[in-house]
């Protein structure tokens, strides 16, 4: 009896805590994995948030939320304090997002780059960054003198492997002798490690450096060494004006504004979004004039064709490292294959770390 009473008391206080904090204004919350000033991944999500704010919707953000035990509390607090739509912008928030979503069926959740949508109020979204990689590959293939492209990779997940493959395939098309050298740094953001990796690749003869990590250290290293590089996530041109040929820009703003308005107006539905150049979620930075007018024209055309669907990043024939066929001639890889990509294509050096 006493035990039951205690239990009811606790639930009552617990529920009271939820109800006291709820409030009627429509609000959108953002959870960032890094600081807003990283000039990479989080910076671009923050730009997206600014666009939502500019559209007249109130927003809140929490930055540098570790992907461990703290993430769930932050997401829950946002849900509890009257936020109606919450963007969790890193892969590591996948399980906490779904867990909190279960307890707040009236709050909508949008999780970036994940694959779990366990409840009807969880959507996922990501961008087809590989389309940008195809453009980088085309440029790199034309610009390299040593036929060696250096690639700083974070983790051997499908997204990163897809980027390596898309880049290599495009480079091979314009320069059959191309070789892709990869250094795995096992971090998304560590300027020291990234700079070391860039230097190691340059020492191995790479004269074009690209990165699937978020800091500006690789492009700055490339600038110093006098080799070409590409910006990642945001337009990094001002950090290495001579070296950067272009940047792949993540433009979350249109999607965030669209989803926020949908949630406010009650038209939000669960979905799995994978947008690319066509929708503008992937955009290219300004092309460096050092590429020459002809090459700029070529890649501008390529960018248009990728956006219109005339060209696909993964058009057969595509072979793996051992020469087995992955995609037959005349076919393109489907989204399922892209989503689970876990082998290198021919021309990439080394093995995927296991």
């Amino acid at each position: 009896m006493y035990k039951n009473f205690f239990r009811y008391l606790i639930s009552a206080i617990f529920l009271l805590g939820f109800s006291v904090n709820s409030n009627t204004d429509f609000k959108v919350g953002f959870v960032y994995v890094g600081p807003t000033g990283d000039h990479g991944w989080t910076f671009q999500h923050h730009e997206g948030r600014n666009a939502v704010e500019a559209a007249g919707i109130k927003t809140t953000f929490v930055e540098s939320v570790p992907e461990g035990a703290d993430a769930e509390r932050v997401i829950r607090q946002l849900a509890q304090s009257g936020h109606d739509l919450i963007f969790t912008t890193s892969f590591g928030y996948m399980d906490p997002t779904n867990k909190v979503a279960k307890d707040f069926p009236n709050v909508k959740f949008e999780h970036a780059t994940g694959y779990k949508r366990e409840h009807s109020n969880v959507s996922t979204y990501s961008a087809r960054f590989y389309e940008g990689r195809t453009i980088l590959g085309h440029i790199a293939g034309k610009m390299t003198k040593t036929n060696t492209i250096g690639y700083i990779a974070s983790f051997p997940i499908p997204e990163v492997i897809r980027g390596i493959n898309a880049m290599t395939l495009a480079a091979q098309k314009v320069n059959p002798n191309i070789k892709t050298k990869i250094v795995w740094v096992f971090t998304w953001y560590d300027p020291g490690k990234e700079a070391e990796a860039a230097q190691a690749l340059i020492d191995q003869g790479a004269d074009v450096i690209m990165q699937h990590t978020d800091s500006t250290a690789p492009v700055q290293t490339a600038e110093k060494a006098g080799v070409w590089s590409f910006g990642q996530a945001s337009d990094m041109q001002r950090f290495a004006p001579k070296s950067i040929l272009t940047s792949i820009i993540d433009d979350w703003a249109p999607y965030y504004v669209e989803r926020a308005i949908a949630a406010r107006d009650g038209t939000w539905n669960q979905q799995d979004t994978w947008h690319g150049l066509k929708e503008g979620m992937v955009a290219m930075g300004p092309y460096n004039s050092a590429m020459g007018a002809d090459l700029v024209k070529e890649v501008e055309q390529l960018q248009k064709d990728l956006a219109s669907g005339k060209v696909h990043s993964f058009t057969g024939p595509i072979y793996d490292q051992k020469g087995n066929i992955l995609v037959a001639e005349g076919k393109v890889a489907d989204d399922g294959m892209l989503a689970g990509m876990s082998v290198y294509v021919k021309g990439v050096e080394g093995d995927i770390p296991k």
Partner: protein
Amino acid sequence: MALYFFTPFIAIILTILGGGIIFYILGFNPIEALKFYFITPISNLYGFSELLLKATPLCLIAIGLSFCFKSNNWNIGAEGQLTFGAIVGGGVALLFYNQEGFYILPLVILAGAIGGMIFALIPAILKTYFNTNEILVSLMLVYVSKLILDYLVVGPWSNPEGFNFPETRQFSDSSRMPLLFESLRIHAGIFLALAAVMLSWFILYKTYLGFQIKVSGLSLKTAKYAGFKGKTMILVVFMISGACAGLAGVGEITGPIGQLHRMISPDYGFTAIIVAFLGRLNPFGIIFASLVVALTYLGAETAQIFLQIPKYTGQVFQGMILFFLLASDYLLFFKVKILSLKKNELRH
């Protein structure tokens, strides 16, 4: 002596005042900001349970550290011992993946404690037998442990169905800490922390070992003169410290996290050093200190959510607490004497 236990309160009050001034300079209403910082996070049961959840690992590690610090052994690498404990405990949890049995969780916890203990023994043995500096060795081993964890979650232990993402499988329920209340995250690990508090009080104040530790801390020469075996004691305090850190690590992964990945601890092992000193290396003081420091974490989140105050103020608060604590110690316990040159000065 009363003053000795009073200074932490002075430090906390000064920190709150200092925080208010910083908020004021940043353009926030200081009273409102402090309210969101120190009251809102624990104004409901969920918040309070989160405070306890956050304080649990801090308390456990700080209790362990108090043994080391009391005896003049500077173990700075609790973060590494936590990580290694989590690795060993997590390994056992993965070994029993999808198996049932009441014995699994105790085994996992025990493995975590042993892991932390082994990892703490490295600087202890190097110190006692090779005269190395335990501060450097224990600190450097933090990076070693994190690299081992990185290697395991990326490579051999990564989830086979996880698309190569750097994390292991979710542990089965049989190796998860039982939750105390439904829909709250607070788990049975808190009893481990409380048990550690009781046990450490007993050891420190009621046993011969505790006496040795205290004497060694006050004066190493006296300890030697009294014939205490210094080496064994150093090994023992490091083992206790490591076991506590390992327990904290295994509590995190079997509690709120539920798997191994690269971000199992937001530097609890380092923050616990502040907790240990704020708690005056006293078991009950440490309970109080761990709650205060845990609150600075939660407060930083709440303040950012409600007022958009940068989350890094949490670290500023932790820094201020330590700074004011050391400063008030200095000002309270150092006597100012004006000396004149006399005969005995010339002897030096």
